[in-house]
């Protein structure tokens, strides 16, 4: 069953972000396991047939690897706490140059459980990212890059289609090299393959640039200074199918941007704010209020500068809609985050069990049910799919 492709990719990302925020709040293995199972179920039932749908497997391996590394680091150089000894390893302390470093020693059950919790948290986080990657179709996300980055978005789209072709070109040229009775290896061989491929690629880039330019890329359309919306009917008349207009119908349903320099100053000032805010946070165990405020203002200013900044005149063809199912999916993600934050506040010992005394991970029933709520993503995505079929 697939129910993913219909929904806006941004909604999947927000859902995954919500869930991963929830994950980041806890080291309780029971909760982590529940969330992981939920995420996996959603992925398996909602991912499409597109190539990125298979990305989840890679993320699952990465997650397992992370748990392994974390445990390995613990066994090698971890902090020794607790009394339930598992094994005593030979201990070795290097000289003064590595003060504090101690390799091996006593491995305890408490230490392993702690490492497993930390590693597990990280692993489930990675699973959430994998879910977003395999559900959202990152390429569709490119449609929602900010208008100010339209040109770079184009470059990325083209790069994405070119990269597999380059790989094919390399194979083709290697074959051609064999036709000449040569087996390319070493630097020289690499060069003999790289030169034709790169030269072709650069030639291709020129053709591509011509094709883009000849189709109007990079055009600055005269825009009226009034931010009025032209009626769609008038616009249709302007470019009615059988007439050809020489001037091009300027698109009007767009916000007017501020003058370039003004935006530049706004963004510079905002960045200064962000930097100051970070400076205020440095070293302090509790962030001072002023730093938070300045940081927040800087962030808002930067966002404003990007939104209001200069942008290409291009319009978007059939943008992905953002409607009720997208909002619902985002809410499902946020819900998980809220639940875990509440758990941290109300029952901190359950959310982040202390290393000792050692005990099995446990959680109240409401929290278990709450974690299960990530599964709501499946029916919500199904809604969007029905919408698409209509």
């Amino acid at each position, binding site marked *: 069953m697939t129910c993913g492709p219909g929904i806006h990719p941004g909604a999947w990302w927000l859902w995954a972000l919500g869930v991963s925020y929830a994950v980041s709040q806890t080291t309780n293995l029971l909760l982590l396991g529940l969330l992981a199972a939920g995420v996996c179920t959603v992925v398996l039932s909602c991912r499409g047939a597109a190539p990125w749908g298979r990305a989840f497997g890679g993320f699952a391996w990465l997650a397992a690897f992370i748990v392994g590394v974390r445990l390995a680091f613990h066994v090698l150089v971890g902090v020794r706490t607790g009394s339930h000894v598992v094994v005593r390893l030979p201990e070795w302390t290097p000289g003064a140059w590595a003060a504090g470093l101690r390799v091996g020693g006593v491995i305890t059950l408490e230490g392993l459980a702690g490492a497993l919790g930390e590693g597990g948290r990280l692993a489930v986080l990675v699973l959430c990212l994998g879910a977003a990657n395999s559900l959202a179709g990152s390429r569709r996300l490119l449609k929602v890059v900010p208008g100010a980055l339209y040109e770079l978005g184009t470059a990325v789209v083209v790069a994405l289609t070119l990269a597999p072709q380059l790989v094919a070109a390399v194979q083709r040229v290697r074959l051609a090299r064999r036709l*000449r009775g040569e087996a390319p290896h070493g630097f020289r061989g690499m060069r003999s393959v790289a030169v034709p491929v790169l030269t072709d690629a650069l030639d291709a880039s020129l053709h591509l640039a011509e094709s883009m330019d000849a*189709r109007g890329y990079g055009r600055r359309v005269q825009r009226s200074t009034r931010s009025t919306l032209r009626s769609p009917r008038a616009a249709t008349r302007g470019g009615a199918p059988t007439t050809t207009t020489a001037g091009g119908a300027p698109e009007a349903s767009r916000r007017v941007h501020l003058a370039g320099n003004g935006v530049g100053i706004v963004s510079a000032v905002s960045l200064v704010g962000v930097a100051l805010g970070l400076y205020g946070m440095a070293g302090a165990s509790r962030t001072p209020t002023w730093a938070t405020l300045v940081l927040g203002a800087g962030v808002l200013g930067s966002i404003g500068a990007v939104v209001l900044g200069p942008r290409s005149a291009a319009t978007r063809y059939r943008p992905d809609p953002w409607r009720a199912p997208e909002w619902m999916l985002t809410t499902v993600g946020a819900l998980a985050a809220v639940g875990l934050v509440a758990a941290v506040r109300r029952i901190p010992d359950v959310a982040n069990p202390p290393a000792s005394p050692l005990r099995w991970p446990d959680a109240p029933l409401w929290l278990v049910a709450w974690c299960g709520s990530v599964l709501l993503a499946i029916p919500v995505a199904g809604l969007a799919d029905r919408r698409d079929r209509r």
Partner: protein
Amino acid sequence: MIRFDRVSFTYPDQESPSLRDVDLTVDEGEWCLVAGRTGSGKSTLLRAVNGLVPRFSGGVLRGSVTVAGRSTSEVKPRDLAETVGFVGQDPAAGFVTETVEEELAYAPEQLGLAPTVMRTRVEEILDLLGLDGLRDRPLRSLSGGQQQRVAIGSVLTAHPRVLVLDEPTSALDPTAAEDVLGAVARLVHDIGVTVLIAEHRIERVVHFADTVLELRDDGTAGKGAPGDVLAGLAVAPPIVVLAEALQWVPPPLSVRAARRRLAADPRRGVIDRVGGDDRAHAAEPDARPVVATLDSVSVRRGDVGAVHDVSLRVHRGEIVALMGRNGSGKSSLLWAVQGSLPRVTGTVRVADGTDRESRATTSTVSSAHGDVRWWGRLLGGRPAAGRVGSVEGQAGHGACTWGVDPAALPAPAARHLVGMVPQTPSDLLYHETVGEELDTAGGGDAGAAARARSLLASLLSVTIPDRSHPRDLSEGQRLALVLALQLSAEPALLLLDEPTRGLDVPGKADLARWCRSEGRAAIIATHDVEFVADVADRVVVLSHGELIADGPVREVLGSTPMLSTQVAKVTAPTGLLTVREVCDALAALIGTR
């Protein structure tokens, strides 16, 4: 609509201009065909229409180019998007997006059109070019003809008044070419678009064209009615050449007109009779020794079967044309014979024959010894080959009727058995100069390098300076260079994949003449019926990877209109294929009378 006023253009780093004093007027709604030899500046002229030349190419342009009253020196190409729609030679190279629908929407997006307008335009063009069924398909998965139609559609959504097409059908099989040109013709009739089109395969386009612009090698140009301009032109299509041979003035431009003309011609009866006589000769079995044998070869590419169960024999000195639609498995079959593409089933055997003897006598013994060593290892490793005879016996006697599988040999040895020129010959070139390429012809073997040099000289009328860059050569020169490199190994069998792609009519004639005189067994995959009629002894037709026809040229090319030359269509049902044959037949008959 388009006006060139004394336009001269010189590329940077070049002394002689590519266009010289070109005066040109193309009216609204006119279909103008640009004809000329390779390198005569056709692409340059087309690119100058919307200012890509000189804005993208660099160089100096004198004179003025105006389109719809706007001068390209003042207006940038992008601001001419609603005036001129430009489609370059390789449609795939110009694609910006991933799917058909997005690509069609690209131009309206750039023009900043409102979403509703965009939607109607895209739908309109999808219908007009018959692309509706492909709208969600990834561009890279389309066939060549479909890609070309999408490329044309992607400029049409800007509603240009002029459509400029640079060789839109050169890579297409006849059916796909008809599709594309039919779509363009519909545009001209329905919307009144002005069309400027450059094409090597003039015979495909000429009956659509209102006027022909001839670009001469010195960069000057002349324009007139198709019949007037094409007569006497080096790149004239066969039908015009036939008209010249039969002294038809003005020449007919379509098969229909030519047939009507022939019907009224007193020589009609003679030609009919000759053709009938000619056909009466039953095809004799080829007595020459077999050079290569393919036994039920099957190949898979990815998840799809590309070639199914193909069996074929090639005799010494025989030229076999491999024909079929785009994607019918021609290239796959060639690569399978060459050995780089693994076969699922079947065997390929190539006999070394006399070539090895001659190589041994021309004192480049090292490679011959190398071969023997490889054979020894090969036979030792494969007892099944035992029926073929002993190694010593084979090495001693030049002529052998058994064969070696090229796939089982390492690359340096395989190329003495099978020489291949792939679809993009430039893949084989990677040095800075032609001289270096030639010197490394045989991997440091001086004999091979010398052979490559003399081959190249015999292939080309003009010598290429050693220090010129391989990428600056013309298509024909590059093909000759690669051919020389591959033939320096003296392979028993030559494989050519679409060799005529970038060649004009004289270039193709050169290649055909050379193939015939060389006397080497060859398999040539091509769409070019005229070239096949000129060069091949036998034609093999593939469809969806299956061999559907295998027979002498006359039989196969005469059997279906899609695989028929223009002359054959005109003189049907005589079975005469080329102008030369018609002339020979006439001359012979006149002689006997």
